[in-house]
């Protein structure tokens, strides 16, 4: 984990409301697939808190890029950063997707919306190692798919199934549709699911995985105060035996952001509704 001031190599719009920020660092960093960073434009006072963004791609030990959706004032502030602009960065943070290629296990990666940013590196590994894997990629519409990095994912050559809520690209409907269909068709032994997307989607994926008894990991999201474990503001409710205790809540930033789906108490986390 390093605290540094990075320089924006570029910060371009991929689609309306979706941008790709590439940062140059002063020191080398080792980033594992699924880790994230806390970012904000230098000395920006409003908002005060940095925002969590997954490391989308590693171009070299000192060049990383971030794929993000412009939602509110924090991401708007990032969107205003120009080439050469300085960005405060704390990274890399959080755990990572387990190396997927041990004991020729099969993998289905489910990306929902901008959740794609968190799984690109794992997809890269899978493609590189010619692993037995596929990607289910769901977004609201075709432009959103482009904003969520569709071209980059296509270039990897992994088996790819596309869905859009409005049917403007690929199958119409939610990404959980094809997932459930495939699992029903069998081939579940040795399969693992990695999923990142909106809470509602991940809750659904977790439900399906449980139903078909397939191990599933999810990368969760929560508003973050610090990103390195001290504010205890980013928690999610996890399963524990008996009454609420210290272990009833886990921090997304340091205990996660990746959790086994079955450990999450989906019904009580308001974000999942």
């Amino acid at each position, binding site marked *: *984990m390093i*605290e540094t001031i990075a320089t924006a190599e570029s910060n371009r719009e991929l689609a309306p409301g979706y941008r790709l920020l590439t940062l140059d660092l002063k020191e080398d960093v080792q980033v594992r697939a699924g880790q994230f960073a806390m970012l*904000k434009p230098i000395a920006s*006072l*409003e*908002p*005060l*808190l*940095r925002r969590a963004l997954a490391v989308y791609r590693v171009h070299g030990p000192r060049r990383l890029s971030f794929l993000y959706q412009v939602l509110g004032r924090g991401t708007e502030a990032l969107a205003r950063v120009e080439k050469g602009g300085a960005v*405060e960065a*704390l990274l890399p943070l959080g755990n990572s997707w387990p190396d997927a290629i041990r004991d020729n296990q099969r993998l289905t990666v489910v990306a929902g919306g901008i959740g794609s940013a968190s799984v690109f590196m794992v997809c890269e590994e899978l493609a590189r190692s010619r692993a037995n894997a596929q990607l289910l990629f769901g977004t609201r519409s075709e432009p959103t798919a482009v904003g969520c990095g569709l071209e980059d994912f296509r270039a990897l050559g992994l088996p790819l199934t596309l869905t859009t809520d409005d049917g403007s690209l690929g199958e119409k409907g939610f990404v959980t549709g094809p997932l459930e269909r495939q699992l029903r068709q069998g081939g579940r032994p040795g399969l693992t699911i990695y999923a990142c997307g909106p809470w509602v989607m991940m809750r659904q994926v977790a439900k399906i995985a449980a139903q078909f008894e397939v191990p599933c990991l999810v990368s969760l999201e*929560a*508003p973050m*105060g*610090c990103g*390195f*474990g*001290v*504010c*205890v*503001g*980013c*928690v*999610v*409710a996890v399963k524990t035996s008996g009454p*609420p*205790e*210290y*272990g*009833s*809540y886990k921090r997304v930033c340091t205990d996660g952001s990746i959790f086994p789906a079955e450990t999450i108490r989906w019904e*009580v*986390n*308001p*974000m999942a509704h």
Partner: protein
Amino acid sequence: MADPTNHDPRLAVEIAGVRFNNPVIGASGTFGYGLEFADLIDLNRLGGFATKGLSARPLPGNPPPRIVETHGGMLNAIGLQNIGARAFIHEKLPLLALWDTRVIANVFGYSDDDYIEAITILNDGEGIAAYELNISCPNVKEGGIVIGNSPDAAARLTEKAKRASIRPLIVKLSPNVTDIAQLARAIVEAGADCLSLINTIVGMSIDVNTRQPRLSYGTGGLSGPAIRPIAVRMVHEVARAVDVPLIGIGGIASAPDALEFIIAGATAIQIGTANYYDPTVSMKVIDGLSAHCESHRIATIKSLIGSLK
């Protein structure tokens, strides 16, 4: 590791017999158990830090969402999730012993007895410099009233805690009162060795689309630069009312911010929320205080305490 650090002697201060290499202290709840910062700053350079509120037994805390950002600050309703006093002694203190910085154990309970129990447990801990009694957490009302808002209740608890404690006792004041000077007097008369202020101010934020509070707890504690002018005013009021040392807290994010509190009457200061968005802020503040002493030819920062004209 033994202290390899060259401290600026001009910045040293003392509180209830405890020497701090400088007046910059990490605020409770924003500094974890200290160790989280070991990779980010040189803990040996830090004056000290206050632990996350410790209770006799571990606490789960409130359900999410626990935090929401506001203009110039944030609301939190963590609900004092903590590992408990015993785990702190066994898991954290031994590791903290590797650094030369003052460890202040922030103590919390739902009842007087809870507090006393936590203090009794912590009394066995090695390397705790002082206790900070958190009687002002707005996010854990039991039976509706916050002990820290009632001079009588606060004085009663302070007296018991002082008796139970083998260490200097800092009592952390609630800003959610009409007359903080009166509250301070009652607590000092009850035996507090030092007062720290302010804790967060009760606030609320509403999502106008769902028409629900943004925090699961409903209300939360407001912190950050937004509250600094209120905190400076309260430190100034309390400084004129009592004669124990004060630790100023509230929205500090730079050396000039810290100096406002010192000039208003604080012997030391705590940095809270700023640690989240600028993890190395404490080092910057220490350097800034040295620079101020340099440019204003100040031999010791003690000469600035309460020096408001």
